[in-house]
Structures are given as structure tokens and as C-alpha cells.
């Protein structure tokens, strides 16, 4: 199938998601509020901590807001574009409904990952951008167009990393059928994306900065806005994106070989 055909499928799915959201407007409103409140909880944590201290690991209040906003933006994109699809994938593997995706004339991973859009997640990405914009203004940052483009690219890499991690975790369902709650481990891991890299020392530094991609997904984009183009950091994030996306696809494909359906 040609890339254009995939684009058409994705647009059809997006249109279906918009129509569906418009049918359940109250549900959309409630879920938007849910995400908005959770973002508020994280912002409140920053506000409370900085009531009592001037800096955390060398990061001032507005630098921290920039970091949290960046972490939120990556998360909102994941929630908006992929979370429901991958969450349902785990359920479908368990129930056997995953057959439906295999029967479609296209790449199974694409079909599984892009069926639905959650507009509430995408709507709250605007709020995250607002937080980033507010923090940037308070810090007196004025990034150039190239700087903004680089930031967008880094966010894209962050989304790829998150997608890869989530896909790898959910694909474990191919092996451990009854693994309810395994998806929760993704949120636990990504909690660390709200921490400045400098706060992690010793074992935490090795684990959350070097081995797992939790810190790098938010810190590198935030640093691009704060300090401009730093080749080592940018290359680090790009390499991590390639690695984790590749790992997610690899685990998915290996899992697919084990899939034996569950229907009668």
C-alpha cells in the first residue's frame, strides 16, 4: 500500500473520530476536564514547591514550568493520537478481537495505532503550549523560527520515544495474556519526565537518564528553548527516538508471531 493510501486511511479515521466526539459532546467535555485537572495538579506541585525554595537542581520556577509544559505537551500528543488505540490493543489481544486488524489490507501496526483520535488530549495540547508560552515569556525567551522548528522536532522525537515505550509495554500482552494494569507502568516511568536531569544522581542517573528514556524526552526539548542548539543533546534525543521506536516495533512484531487468536 502506498503512503498516500495510508494518509487517506488516517484522514478517514480522524474524520470518524471527530464525528464520534461530536456525538458524545458531554463525554468530550468531561475527558477534557479530566486532562485539564491532571495538568493543574502537576502545575500546583511546582507552585507549592517554589513557595518554599528558589530552585530545584539549578532550575528556577519558570524553567521548571517550561520543563513540565514540555513533558505535558509530549504526553498530550501521546494521549490524543495513540493511547486509546494501544490501550485497546491489549484488550483486543486478550479477547481475540485483534483478528479484525490483521484482516485489514494494511500494515497491522499502522491499523492498530491510528484507528482513533482522542480530541480531548489534542485540545489540552493547546493548554500545554500555553504553559510553555507563559514560562518562556516570564524567562524572556525569544526563540528564532529555526529554534522553534528544532523544538518541534525534539517534541516529535519525544512522542516517538513515548510511542515506542508504550508499544513495547503493551506488546508484552502477546506473552502475558492476563496482564491487566501493565499499561500503568508507562505512567509510572513517564512521571520522571517532570524532573530536571540534574536532580538525578548515582543509580537514579544511570537508570532514568541513561538506561530509560524518561528524563531525556522532556529535558532535551526544554533545553533547546532555554539554551539553543546543543548538538550532543539533540543527537542523543534523536538516537534515543530511533532506538525506542525500533524496540517497540521489534517487540510488537515478535509478539505478533505468537498471536493465536482467541475466538472459537
Amino acid at each position, binding site marked *: 500500500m502506498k503512503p498516500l493510501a495510508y494518509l487517506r486511511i488516517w484522514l478517514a479515521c480522524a474524520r470518524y473520530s471527530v464525528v464520534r466526539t461530536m456525538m458524545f459532546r458531554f463525554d468530550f467535555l468531561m475527558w477534557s476536564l479530566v486532562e485539564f485537572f491532571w495538568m493543574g495538579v502537576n502545575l500546583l506541585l511546582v507552585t507549592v*514547591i517554589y513557595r518554599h*525554595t528558589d530552585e530545584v537542581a539549578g532550575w528556577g520556577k519558570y524553567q521548571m514550568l517550561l520543563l513540565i509544559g514540555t513533558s505535558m505537551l509530549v504526553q498530550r500528543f501521546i494521549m490524543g493520537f495513540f493511547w486509546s488505540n494501544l490501550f485497546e490493543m491489549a484488550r483486543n489481544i486478550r479477547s481475540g478481537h485483534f483478528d479484525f486488524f490483521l484482516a485489514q489490507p494494511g500494515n497491522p501496526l499502522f491499523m492498530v495505532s491510528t484507528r482513533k483520535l482522542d480530541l480531548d488530549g489534542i485540545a489540552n495540547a493547546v493548554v500545554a503550549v500555553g504553559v510553555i508560552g507563559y514560562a518562556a515569556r516570564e524567562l524572556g525567551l525569544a526563540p528564532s523560527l529555526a529554534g522553534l522548528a528544532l523544538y518541534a522536532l525534539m517534541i516529535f522525537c519525544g512522542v516517538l520515544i513515548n510511542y515506542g515505550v508504550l508499544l513495547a509495554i503493551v506488546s508484552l500482552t502477546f506473552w502475558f495474556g492476563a496482564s491487566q494494569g501493565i499499561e500503568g507502568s508507562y505512567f509510572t516511568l513517564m512521571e520522571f519526565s517532570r524532573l530536571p536531569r540534574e536532580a538525578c544522581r548515582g543509580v537514579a542517573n544511570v537508570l532514568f537518564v541513561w538506561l530509560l528514556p524518561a528524563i531525556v524526552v522532556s529535558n532535551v526539548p526544554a533545553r533547546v528553548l532555554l539554551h539553543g542548539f546543543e548538538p550532543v543533546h539533540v543527537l542523543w534525543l534523536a538516537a534515543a527516538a530511533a532506538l525506542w521506536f525500533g524496540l517497540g516495533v521489534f517487540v510488537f512484531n515478535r509478539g505478533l508471531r505468537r498471536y493465536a487468536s482467541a475466538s472459537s
Partner: protein
Amino acid sequence: MSAFAKYRHAFLVGLQSNIIYRWNFGIRALFSLFHLAFVFILWGAAYKGQTQIGGFDLNQTLTYFILLLVMQFFIGAFNEDYQISEEIRNGLINQFLLKPVNYYGYRFSIFLAARSVSGLLGLLPLLVALPLLKDHLVLPSEGWRLALGLPAMVMAGLIQFTIAYCFGLLSFWFLEIQSFIILSLAVETMLGGQMFPLDLMPGWFFRVSQFLPYYYQMYFPTAIFTGRLNQAQAFEGLALQAFWVAALLGLAHLLWTRGLRRHTAVGG
């Protein structure tokens, strides 16, 4: 069959069915250690260059979060709201309408069983991590903290469960209650002291939070045990907590009786 025997059986059945999910609880408990690592890193960095925040040192704050974790496994509502919602939506609740069993009592017995299992399993990873944690644990030694903290913990469990029960009963009116539950969880996380000790908030905000039920879910018993509240505050809190238990039990009864009026039992 005496009332006690009925609910004892429900408790034992709940115990057996929850032991089946021991790995789920175990994995959840293991991941909670990662959350604890996040808390240690964040607050460790916040305390750099100062010995006290809000009148408490780093170890006192870390003890608060460790005990909060223990509380969550012993008295927190996990998925009781979803279970109740499913029973209403699937019609499984019909059987309780025909039997001399109080549905709240039945569900609470199962909640007690589930928390016994999750509480004990939740302790295991903490015990494994104890060599790393013990240097940070600083619990006050006053006896009254135990005497007041334990009833506060019991009532906190009742509040936790009853709020979850009420959300589950919303299924009489709404097809989908997940968004309500997660929205409430966000408010609870914020006002229940799960992200930060509530006493670090501005004074007026802390005072307002004391009149809301969320304060009595996790923060209140944890704050008594960890020395963040004095005796007078603890007594005042216990009275307000008892009020919230009574109010929520009343609300649960109201939702149950009103909900049953809307309920339609279909099938044989």
C-alpha cells in the same frame, strides 16, 4: 444465618478472589517504589541548600510519603467503583435485591478483604527496600498518635470506600462513569495530600481543605502518624472526619434508594 456470618463469608470469598490477583497487586506495589524514587529525587533536590521546608526536614517529608504509600495499599479504593458499576450495568446486582444481604455491607466486606491482601503485598517491596529507607524514617514516639491515628485510618478507609461506592452507583444514571472517577481522582490527589503535604499550601487553602472530605482520606491519618498535626488539630479533625463518614453514608443510602427506582431488572 447471623449478619456477622453473612459478611464474614463475603470477606472470605473476597479474600480468595483477591489472592488470585496477587501478582497484579505485587506488580503495582513494585511500581509504587518507582513513584517513591520520584518523590525522593524531587524533594531531595528541593531541600538542597536548606534544612527545613514548611517547618519539616527532608526525612520528615520523606517519611510522610512512605507512610502515605502504606496507607494507599491498606485503605485506598482501587477499582471498587468500576466493580460496582459493572455489577449494575451487567444486572449482577439483581441477585442482591432478592436476598437478605445489604449491598453496601457486602461490597465493604470485599473491600476489607481486598485491602488486607493489597496491604500485606504492598509491604513486601517496602520491606525489601527497608535498608535504603530506614535512615529516612523518623516517626514521632508520642503514644497518642497511635491512639488517634488508628481510628482516623479506619474512618479514612470508610470515606475512601464510600466515595468509590457512590461513584459506582452513578451507573444507575450514567452509562459511562470513568471520566467522573478520574476527575475525582485528580481532585483527591490534589486535596488529599498525595502530591505534597497539604500543610505546605498557603494557610487559607489548608484551612479550607480541612472542611472537605478529601483531607480525611489520606492526609489526615498520615499527618497524625508523622507528626504534622498536633493533638488539638487531631481531635478537631476526628470530629470533622466522623461528620464526613456519616454524611457520605447518608449520601450512599440516598443514591442506592433513588438509583433502585430507576433500575430495571431484565432476564431470568
